[in-house]
């Protein structure tokens, strides 16, 4: 079992899916509990990985390498390093919690949970794959379930949002396909093995690197999303069911940045350094543009979606700096944003289940009616606002301190972003929770046990990492140092 821990983590949900498909259609509870169990195993395994991961080792661990298609030397090559471990844990945790968040799905329950487990396999695979072909297959495997999950169980404009999401991401991934093939053909014995792509980077000419970097960047930027390619995110988020927007924001957004750190940075160092400033500029635009758009939103979920765009901007800025603090800050921000936004979306789900609308102006004075709920919302809001003592601050501070020596003016502009973020968050907090309670919501029940079960673990993580971030930072610092050093080879 421990020999192939990554394969088990990745493919156990698939087994769960098969079991669920075999189940009778009229036993929803049985299906839900099996799905929860199927996603619990990867969580346990990921905790095991967290414990047994060698912090001192910058290279790859838990490597599994089996030839898949010998003729084109495509291998089933799985392995993780400091960069992927936090993501694996985040995926496992959020998928497990989202099982419980989707407890009140009542339409085509079997289809929903089967697709959800397939989605989890796809995500886990992306973070563990080290063969570019395998990485691409897992990357695309995620698209199918997402399309149906948004399309069938979504909100009123679900079809439009689903197809828009699919078209955007597919455009990005076909560009990635071309770059993958271009890289594949450049090497003498054609290979997809990323470790060889890293080491033999000398094979590529300068213009080749620039072109492939841009193609890959567009593919990843659509996923992040970076400024001009972001318009699918608000639609997808608003229409997706709660659990799916949690996964969409919590995990899927991180794949863009993970892809760049795993593929573009080590393989195309000349292009990385060349485009670093551009990336930083895009990061800052993301921060400010996301915050400004969020401030003008009426729908709570759309507001959280735009805030995700703003928060991912920090990752871009940190990543572009290529300094240890910047890189670690960016990856920590990915993890923190994952937990914080997951909380936010779960909380939106809670209020939506009760009031059946997400219009910020429509609420008022909820603090008196739902005190516990307000408490958790305050923790989540202030974490995303970057209040010290909560995890958001640590990653933002690291990003700023890492990016300042490299891009002075950009970082100063970016720091202004924290005021805008504070602005729209506190304004929303005030409009929804403070002030007098309007009579319509006299009878709103406070948060129930199941919802608490999904939220409390995340809240604990947010607070603990705010005070003592070393457990996660310790994981990633050597690998990120190695990637930063590789990205700056000439």
């Amino acid at each position, binding site marked *: 079992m421990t020999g192939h821990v990554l394969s088990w983590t990745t493919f156990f949900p698939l087994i769960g899916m098969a079991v669920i498909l075999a189940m009778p259609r009229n036993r929803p509870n049985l299906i839900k509990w099996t799905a929860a169990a199927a996603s619990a195993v990867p969580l346990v395994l990921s905790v095991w990985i967290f414990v047994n991961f060698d912090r001192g080792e910058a290279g790859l661990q838990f490597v599994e390498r089996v030839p*898949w*298609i010998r003729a084109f030397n495509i291998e089933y090559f799985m392995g993780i390093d400091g960069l992927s471990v936090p993501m694996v844990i985040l995926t496992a945790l959020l998928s497990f919690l989202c099982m419980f968040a989707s407890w009140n799905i009542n339409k085509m329950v079997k289809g929903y949970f089967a697709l959800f487990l397939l989605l989890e396999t796809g995500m886990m695979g992306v973070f563990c794959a080290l063969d570019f072909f395998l990485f691409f297959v897992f990357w695309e495997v995620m698209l199918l379930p997402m399309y149906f999950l948004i399309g069938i169980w979504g909100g009123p404009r679900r079809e439009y949002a689903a197809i828009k999401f699919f078209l955007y991401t597919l455009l990005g991934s076909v560009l990635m*396909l071309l770059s993958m093939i271009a890289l594949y053909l450049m090497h003498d014995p054609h290979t997809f093995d990323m470790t060889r792509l890293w080491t033999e980077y000398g094979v590529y000419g300068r213009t080749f690197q620039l072109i492939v970097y841009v193609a890959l960047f567009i593919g990843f930027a659509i996923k992040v999303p970076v400024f001009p390619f972001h318009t699918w995110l608000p639609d997808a988020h608003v229409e997706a069911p709660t659990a799916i927007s949690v996964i969409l924001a919590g995990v899927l957004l991180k794949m863009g940045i993970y892809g760049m750190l795993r593929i573009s940075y080590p393989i195309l160092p000349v292009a990385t350094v060349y485009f670093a400033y551009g990336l930083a500029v895009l990061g800052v635009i993301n921060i400010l543009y996301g915050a400004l758009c969020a401030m003008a939103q009426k729908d709570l979920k759309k507001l959280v979606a735009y805030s995700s765009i703003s928060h991912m901007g920090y990752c871009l800025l940190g990543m572009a700096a290529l300094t240890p603090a910047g890189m670690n800050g960016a990856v920590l921000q990915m993890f923190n944003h994952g937990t914080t936004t997951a909380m936010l979306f779960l909380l939106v789900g809670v209020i939506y289940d009760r009031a059946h609308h997400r219009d910020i102006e429509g609420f008022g004075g909820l603090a008196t009616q739902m005190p516990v709920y307000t408490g958790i919302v305050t923790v989540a809001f202030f974490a995303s606002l970057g209040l010290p003592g909560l995890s958001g601050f640590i990653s933002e501070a690291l990003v700023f301190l890492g990016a300042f020596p490299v891009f002075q003016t950009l970082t100063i502009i970016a720091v202004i972003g924290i005021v805008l973020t504070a602005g729209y968050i506190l304004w929303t907090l005030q409009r929804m929770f403070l002030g007098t309670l309007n009579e319509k919501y006299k009878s709103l029940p406070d948060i129930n046990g199941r919802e608490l079960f999904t939220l409390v673990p995340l809240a604990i993580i947010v607070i603990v990492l705010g005070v003592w971030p070393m457990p996660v930072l310790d994981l990633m610092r050597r690998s990120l140092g190695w990637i930063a050093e590789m990205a700056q080879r000439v």
Partner: protein
Amino acid sequence: MEGLEQLGTYLVLDILPSIRWFVPEIILFAGFTLAIFADLTTDKPGATRSAWVALGSLVAALAATIAGMGAALPEGLGGLSLFRGAVVFDPLANFFKVLFLVATILVVILILRSRDFGLRKMGELHALLLVVAAGLCLMASSTHLLLLYLSLEMVSYVSYVLVGYVKEDRRASEAGLKYVLFGSVSSGAMIFGLSILYGLTGEMNLTKIGAALAVSPGTEPAVLVASFLVMAGIGYKIAAVPFHFWCPDVYEGAPTPLTAFLSVAPKAAGFAMLARVTIHLFGQAGSLLAIDWPLVMAVFSALTMTLGNVIAVQQSNVKRLLAYSSIAHAGYLLMGLACVDRATGTLSERGLFGVLFYLVVYLFMNLGAFAVVIALREKVSDEEEIDSYRGIGPRAPLLGVAMAIFLFSLTGLPPLAGFVGKFFLFAAVIEAELYWLAVVGILNSVISLYYYARILKAMYLERVDETGEAPPLRLAPSHSVLLVVLAAPTVLLGIFWAPLAGLVQRSVGFLF
């Protein structure tokens, strides 16, 4: 094994010794006659005796071909040129024969289950199908100008009859007329082209013509005109743009199983012939580059893909949509043939490999999609509009999932076979440095997602009635089996395609 002469890597055999290598086609012709007899012996409407005869002969031919593939040729020989250079027996031809026979078998099964034909006499249909199968095998293996023409016409003429088979249906006869007229003009142009080729070299065998052309300088303009005209004939068969006009109307008018057949087998045969011509006629180094072949093919490919995809987006009739989708896929396949190996100046091995691989994958997913359309015509309504598919997904899970697999594979999404096929084609294009074509190709894939997903949207996302679940659809067991038979390879070949890759490599390797 003595032969008349050594033509390149082929040993030319005389008439009588060649018969031994011509067994599959002979079986098919025998089957044809048997099927007619079988039909004469029963007058019960809807009798399936002729169908079983047809299936029997097809399977026998398939067995013969596979046996032939196993036969060890003397070393050094790429293949045998039978009947003094008329037809050729080599791994490439055998590969295509297997493909055609499998396709025909599947279509015969489809016809057995479909309601399209009502209760009329089916004997002729099965007989004609056998003739078409034989014609296809000939198309794949002919290297003689006359054989090229004869085999093409054999397939075309029979197809005209098959399309118009259901006499009462006005649309079928209209389709038949369009098919006849358009087909005849194209083949007429082709013959004119062939005559020019013959005129230039005085030879009838493609390899000899190729050799003669290489020797005679200054014939480029004439060769170009000739190749254009030949391309007219072949282009019509694979429904490439400007020769595709017949395709949507014929596919919509013809009975669905036949549309399925037309969209797979003859199209593959067209590519086989095109490959055969490019390999033998322009086999010599540099001859392809002389007439700027990559650019011409690339333009054809780009036009076909883009037009196919862009119009498909507008379609509301499923059969017309699948028609334009098959035009688009012809475009993708042409990408493979546009790749010329810079070093040797001949058709690139990876390109041909990609085309062959994609044809196999295309066979399964396209037939699958048509099988679902047929199954739905059985269960739901004759209506072929996409809206009539509303809410089918949840009601018929196997059907819905199968259709999802076929359509997403047609789009080219991993982990399905369509992706692997496209992957090889794109690899060939990038290796041949036709970057702009690769970009056009991927943009088309993205556009194609839109109309494939529209069908799935109708089936799954749009809910007909918000109330309870509609009654689940029970599929006929044979339909379910057929769907699984077609869906399994689409998925399996997406996950583990080493054996197929090996087979294709063996059938292509000997040429390079």
